[in-house]
């Protein structure tokens, strides 16, 4: 496969952004449709990637070209079963976010360009196999998101944007030190500096080195996930961001942290990973319960969904450090599932805001009578988020729970409490917002979903049902890559994955 699919996939949104920027500024009716149509091209390309992807371990669609040979930096791209679903998620959420951004009043061209640049950066992060390329893209996406929040956000947007940027950049700065250290170690070992992922995999690092490298990479990713206690940038960023920003932030950008753990912390530093997994698992479980508990008492609907993200990402992290097939598979597929369901919820809250200019739960009430279709979609997304079996949320959660029970039973049991708490905060919120009579006059004449908005949800609903009932379509592609990670951990440490054979007593 010599055609550089991945580079093209990164380039197309950049070109699309340029096209949108050069459109005449007074023809505002053109901006969004053009951006929307152009953003469908990457979906098609990603679809080709999906179709041509073989369910095997190792990287596919690899392209490599030297950039700075002296320091071993090359333009090395490739995807495996973990990156593929995330790239698909990105390409699907971008047109949906664009279609939902009709209420952007000032400089819509710039806004759409920012979204498209964000897409390019995200695809770059997920496909990067050279650590400098990864780092560049990792940092680069902060810029469009900073502008999206800072210019088009709500009242407190500057504070939220700066907080978001500085907090995550702080972690990345630490990670840069680690990246450079890795290349230096590579140079010491082979005489050639290299930032290439496959080269760095062959490094045999001492447990001490692994420990501090795991920590610096881990801090950077933990801030991104976000894990407790470095999560407080998230509620502000989500609440202040415009709808498209929240959708992409929750839908894709949070997964950078979990992806980073899976791609770097586990394979590069397996000893440290095994040793510090209980710490990570503890923080993950705290995140699940704490995030859910705090979500229960939120008065702002968007903040509630934001804290629910903290809780859900905890499940993903728990699955990742379970080091079992089901745990990792569940973590990866939940990354996709969470993106879809939480994306849907943010879209819904955004549409509510467009109509009523408030996000406070107390301002609503009785909206099911006024907007039955909207309420139906909201309830559907709510149950997907709660993890109702048959919908996608359950698949990831259940795989993670069963997978982590095998290696960390106590953690799994506490994490299961998250399913009860999720029902509490979401159904109570639904009750206050939608049921009852619309006693406030502003709630009586709110418009139901129009055609454009309905069309936005159709792909999401189809995905929720398909991934809920037939997740094999993704699991088959994810499994070989996660199995490879577990094999690597088993090969380099004392850890042994527990296996369960039918008919033999377990532990």
């Amino acid at each position, binding site marked *: 496969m010599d055609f550089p699919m991945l580079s093209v996939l990164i380039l197309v949104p950049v070109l699309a952004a340029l096209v949108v920027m050069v459109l005449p500024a007074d023809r505002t009716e053109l901006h969004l449709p053009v951006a929307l149509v152009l953003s469908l091209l990457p979906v098609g390309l990603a679809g080709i990637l999906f179709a041509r992807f073989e369910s095997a371990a190792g990287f596919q669609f690899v392209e490599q070209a030297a950039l700075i040979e002296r320091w071993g930096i090359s333009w090395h791209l490739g995807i495996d079963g973990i990156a593929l679903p995330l790239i698909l998620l990105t390409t699907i959420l971008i047109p949906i976010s664009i279609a939902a951004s009709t209420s952007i009043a000032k400089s819509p061209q710039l806004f759409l360009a920012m979204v498209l640049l964000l897409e390019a950066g995200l695809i770059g992060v997920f496909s990067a196999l050279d650590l400098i390329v990864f780092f560049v893209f990792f940092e680069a996406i902060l810029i469009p998101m900073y502008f999206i929040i800072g210019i088009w956000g709500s009242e407190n947007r500057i504070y939220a944007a700066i*907080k978001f940027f*500085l*907090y995550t950049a702080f972690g990345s700065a630490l990670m840069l030190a680690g990246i450079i250290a890795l290349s230096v170690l590579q140079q010491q070992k082979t005489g050639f500096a290299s930032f290439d992922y496959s080269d760095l995999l062959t490094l045999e690092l001492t447990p001490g080195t692994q420990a501090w490298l795991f920590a610096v990479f881990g801090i950077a990713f933990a801030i991104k996930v976000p894990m*407790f*206690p470095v*999560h*407080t940038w998230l509620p502000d960023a989500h609440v202040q961001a415009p709808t498209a920003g929240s959708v992409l932030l929750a839908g894709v950008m949070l997964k950078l942290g979990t992806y980073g753990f899976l791609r770097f912390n586990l394979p590069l530093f397996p000893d440290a990973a095994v040793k510090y997994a209980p710490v990570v698992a503890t923080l993950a479980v705290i995140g699940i319960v*704490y995030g859910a*508990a*705090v979500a*229960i*008492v*939120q008065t702002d609907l968007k903040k509630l969904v934001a804290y629910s993200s903290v809780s859900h990402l905890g499940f993903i992290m728990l699955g990742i450090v379970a080091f079992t097939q*089901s745990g990792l*598979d569940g973590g990866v597929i939940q990354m996709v599932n969470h993106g879809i369901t939480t994306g849907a919820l943010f879209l819904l809250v955004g549409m509510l805001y467009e109509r009523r200019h408030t996000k406070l739960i107390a301002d609503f009430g*009785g909206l*099911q*009578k006024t907007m039955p279709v909207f309420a139906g979609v909201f309830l559907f997304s709510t*149950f997907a988020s709660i993890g*109702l*079996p*048959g919908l996608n949320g359950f*698949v990831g959660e*259940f*795989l993670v*729970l*069963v*997978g982590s*029970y*095998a290696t960390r*039973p106590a953690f*799994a*049991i506490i994490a*299961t409490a998250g*399913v*009860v708490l999720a*029902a*509490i905060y979401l*159904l*109570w919120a639904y*009750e206050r917002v*939608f*049921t*009852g*009579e619309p006693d406030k006059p502003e709630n009586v004449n709110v418009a139901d979903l129009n055609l454009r908005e309905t069309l936005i949800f159709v792909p999401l609903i189809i995905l929720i049902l398909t991934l809920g*009932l*037939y*997740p*094999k379509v993704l*699991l088959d592609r994810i*499994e070989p890559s996660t199995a490879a990670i577990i094999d690597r951990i088993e090969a380099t440490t004392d850890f042994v994955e*527990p*296996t*369960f054979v*039918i*008919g*033999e*007593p*377990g*532990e």
Partner: protein
Amino acid sequence: MDFLADYLWLIIALPLAGAVALHFGGKFLPEPLPGLVAVGAIGTAFLIAAAAFVPLATGEAEAHILMLWDWMPGIGAAFEIRWDQLSALMTLIVTGVGTLIHIYSIGYMHGDPRFSRFFTYLNLFAASMLTLVLANNYAMMFVGWELVGLCSYLLISFWFTRPSAAAAGKKAFVVNRIGDFAFIVGLMLVFTQFGSLSMSETVLSHPGEVLSPGTATAIAILFLIGAAGKSAQIPLYVWLPDAMEGPTPVSALIHAATMVTAGVYLIARNAAIFELSPVALPIVATVGAATALVAALIAVGQNDIKKVLAYSTVSQLGYMFLAVGSAGYVAGVFHLMTHAFFKALLFLGAGSVIHGMHEEQDMRKMGGLRTAMPITHATMLVATLAIAGIFPFAGFFSKDEILASVFANGGYYLVLWGVGLFTAFLTAYYMTRQYIMVFWGKPRWVEGLKPHESSLWMTVPLMVLAVLSAGAGFLNTPQLLTLEHYLEPVFEALHPAHLESELPRILGMDGLAFGLAIVSLGVAVIGIATAGFVYARSSERFRQWFANATRRPMNASENAFWVDKFYGKTIVLPGKKLAQGLASFDSFFVDGAVNGVAGVVQRIGMSLKPLQSGFVRSYGATFVAGVIGLVIFFLTRGGL
């Protein structure tokens, strides 16, 4: 009928398709078409089930497993159907009683603006419940388990503009979820012990070779908690009385005949695991007996016609748990079946009364309705006699079977038998009380209210259920034991309880069994007589004295022993406070730390600011100082 075996999935697919079709197209159909579509879907499912049931009943066919598709192969989760004697029986109950209730609903929901939406949810519920009972895989069963919870939520809060209905729906789902928490942990245990979630590879194939008694106890208790949530047992029953906010057909179908029986089904299906544990079954029986008693005591003091039936359901479910907890699996399933008939009938009849009384539900405002609503009256009388356990109605046989199984275990179980017997007295008492308050005596309703009998849509199902409530008992009379023989292949590996004594046989029954039957019949008759005396035949003076004497206990009963308030104070309120505390902690401390760091950086910057004074000469002075410093440094270090 072997060709049917490959099409068993239609039983689930038909009501599901009905639900989808009605969801998108229902609003274009005028009444009663949506109802007829729904009836068609579930009715056809019933016919298919009946056709596939025959070979199982005659003994020609054996249990059959139909694999649908792999769901999450990594943990052994798949969609696979199990068609054996137990699941076939459950399917018939669900589709049969379900079809009758669908028909009834066409009459009951007449005129409701969301008529077709109601049938969407009813069909979806049927599909979910069938998924639950037909599952050969724990994961698939859990799908059905949760989806019936979803449908319960949707249907309880069907009239969502009523805040109490919305709150009741949420309460039902959340309390169920607590049970589901335990269920999920149980599933995790099952997978890690067996390496599979398929029932044919786990519980139904010699689990004793894999599970230690401790693990079996853990799994059993977790399943019990899950079952207690779904089947409204102590301590998770509090959602069921609130669920009466939903339309009455919902109460009949979900909260009497089918969904709440899921817990009993779960335990019966997993009986092999329960038997491996030394303590699980006695705990199940104790929970059942306690629930039966407490719920019956609460039912005595209720004045809302549906609340009496709600607590009665909790109590009868307690009997079913008592049965399976005494290894009387067939007795438990038998009672499940007869209860489905007469409780559905009671609820549907209550619905007919409520409609006829123009939405009045307080029994103190009823009375003397037997003339105005003759069909409803006759059918409810049959149901009342059945639930009270009067020969020859169905309830007599099933309840008696249960008590016999309990007694057969001896020892501690004799205490439970006593509890069960006393509860039978209470059951007869409160049901008779209800019957008299509604249908006899002088009319106590509001002036001008003209009660009327209900339409044929509603009365015909009542009549069918009455026939079933009257005759179903003969499906498992002590002489014939047809049901027991039918279910034998399911429970053959287990150790069901059997009552055997040295006494001579009477009427084809074991002497002791016959004696116990007479005792339970007698207790029921005493219960009816007592209620009859208190509420119908006694003098005004006696009633005054009785009301005064029983004021405190009746008040406690009417308030359901203030359990909801207790939960509110001990769980809900502290929970909310804790969540609030964590939220404040997050804002002040965790976020405060972040803002604090920013503040420190800012302060450092501020303190360094005076260095940039803008004075050229001070800059110059700094230069010179620096130069002098460097010179001294190099001079003392001795070279560059």
